[in-house]
């Protein structure tokens, strides 16, 4: 299931503004890779380039290539709809569909597929996904209640359930805990530990302790000055980045000297 991602010379633009310059990195399957760095360094933009969500912003585009197990997701004849189906995403603010019930939210992606599934199959998917997101025990008695009625942390796990229901190869998480309280954050971090056995996970975080807790590799992004594009400073095993960073800028950032 899980796949490897190779980013090669990625440049990302908003209109004429270059937000990210010359990023090349490799993300290993069945691992958690954290993107850290100061605001505006382009880490979210790089993340959104990995499943072609960057281009849904008007005027946004990229240059370079992103390969999933060797296949360029920006190649000719590649359908962005398939890319996003294969590479799921969880956002900063929990965003369950307000008009749908918990169950409908989980099945939102499945319902897009051609071919009808039986009721049993569907309820099996709902249970598997909610169990996968550590949410099953909390909501199993109220699957037909609105998803918006859950707490913030539960809503975020519902969004994770929705993303894994379609069985993607990769899961991208854009600061998934920044809108949550500490207890919900721990629940999500525990979940990430379990999910990495099956998925390739990339997580953007502002919180360095979180990066240290959940990830096996860490990529540090930085920008020279406001208005300059963000660049990848280094990507290395997390222990190494936090104990003996290769670059001075990484050390400054981690030790809290700036940012």
């Amino acid at each position, binding site marked *: 299931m899980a796949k490897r991602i190779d980013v090669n010379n990625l440049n990302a633009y908003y209109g004429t503004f270059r937000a990210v310059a010359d990023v090349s990195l490799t993300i290993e399957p069945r691992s958690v890779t954290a993107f850290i760095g100061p605001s505006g360094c382009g880490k979210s933009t790089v993340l959104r380039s990995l499943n072609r969500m960057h281009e849904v912003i008007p005027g946004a585009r990229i240059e370079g290539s992103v390969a999933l*197990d060797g*296949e360029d*997701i920006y190649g000719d004849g*590649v359908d962005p*709809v*398939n890319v996003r189906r294969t590479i799921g995403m969880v956002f900063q603010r929990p965003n369950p569909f307000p008009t749908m019930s918990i169950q409908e939210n989980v099945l939102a992606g499945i319902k*897009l597929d051609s071919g009808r599934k039986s009721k049993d199959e569907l309820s099996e998917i709902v249970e598997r996904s909610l169990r996968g997101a550590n949410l099953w025990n909390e909501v199993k008695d109220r699957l037909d209640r609105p998803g918006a009625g859950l707490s913030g942390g539960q809503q975020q796990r519902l969004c994770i359930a929705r993303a894994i229901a379609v069985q993607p190869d990769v899961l991208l998480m854009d600061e998934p805990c920044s809108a949550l309280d500490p207890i919900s954050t721990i629940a999500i971090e525990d979940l990430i530990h379990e999910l990495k056995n099956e998925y390739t996970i990339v997580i953007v975080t502002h919180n360095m302790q979180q990066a240290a807790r959940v990830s096996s590799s860490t990529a540090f992004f930085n920008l020279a000055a406001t208005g300059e594009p963000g660049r990848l400073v280094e990507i290395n095993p997390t222990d190494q980045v936090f104990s003996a960073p290769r670059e001075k800028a990484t050390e400054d950032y981690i030790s809290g000297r700036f940012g």
Partner: protein
Amino acid sequence: MSTQLRGSILPKWFAAALAMLSIGAALLIENTTNVSGIGGTTALAVVLYLVLQTAWSFTVEGRRHAVDRLFATLIYSSFVAAALPLATLIWQVVHKGIAQFNANFLSHSMRSVSPSKPGGGIYHALLGTLEQVGIATLIAVPIGILTAIYLVEYSRGGRLGKWISFFVDVMTGVPSIVAGLFIYTAFILTFGMERSGFAASLSLTILMMPVIVRATEEMLKIVPADLREASLALGIPQWKTILRIVLPTAIGGIITGVMLSVARVAGETAPLLLTTFLSQSINSNPFAGPQAAIPTFIWDQISSATPASLDRAWAGALTLILLIMIFYGTAKLIARYYAPKA
């Protein structure tokens, strides 16, 4: 597994090619059968395009993309369907109106001009419209603005304010002919006023007031609360704060709203038909005797239905559109002049 990302997507030139094909096929069908007219051919081409595209996309790209393309085409066409009437309307008004539209038309009345003969003009109606709309504005603006001030500055969600707000909302949806009926029953039948330009003004007032209240309310609401507090903290009484600080801050938006309401009622016909008599002559006194207005002038010329009078109707329509555009243009200029300089 590596084919998972690859969908078979139809190339970019597909849409253009299919459109040409559909138009060609439609023309061919038109020649061999008797579906006629540019409208029929266009409709046929659109239907052909939709069917072919859906079928083609369904076989190559699959159901989901076929549905996506189908709705995209429908959504694009709905915009064209909405824009087409406006485009033809503007074209017709300019094209047919220009024939009669000249200095003579603007400076003469219809007095002793036979409906079937060319000549005559719209001066009496232009004068009537300006006077009627002017009087309506003079009455509606103070009442409308003061009501909005009450709603925003004093009532603050009180019960009376809620009732006024509700009725103002409902009033915006009252058909204009009902406004005419009301003025007729209240002022003409009950108080014995005669049908006149002034009665017409009153019916326009009914239509203007809710628009002005709403526009002013919106503008007053966005005046920052700290501005009011700063003024009150200086010991300036509330009424002076409202008149000297709040209103001047919002004045650009308020004037824009007033101009838009003027533009809206300047084209009203139905209430005028009930409250004033048609006239072919110049009458500068709105309080006595029949008085013409541009909309009723057009109505009258259409009713005469001679080629000459229809020409005058189109020229009248062009005059009315130009007048409304002047009101809108003024509104835009005012809005820009008062726009916060950032």
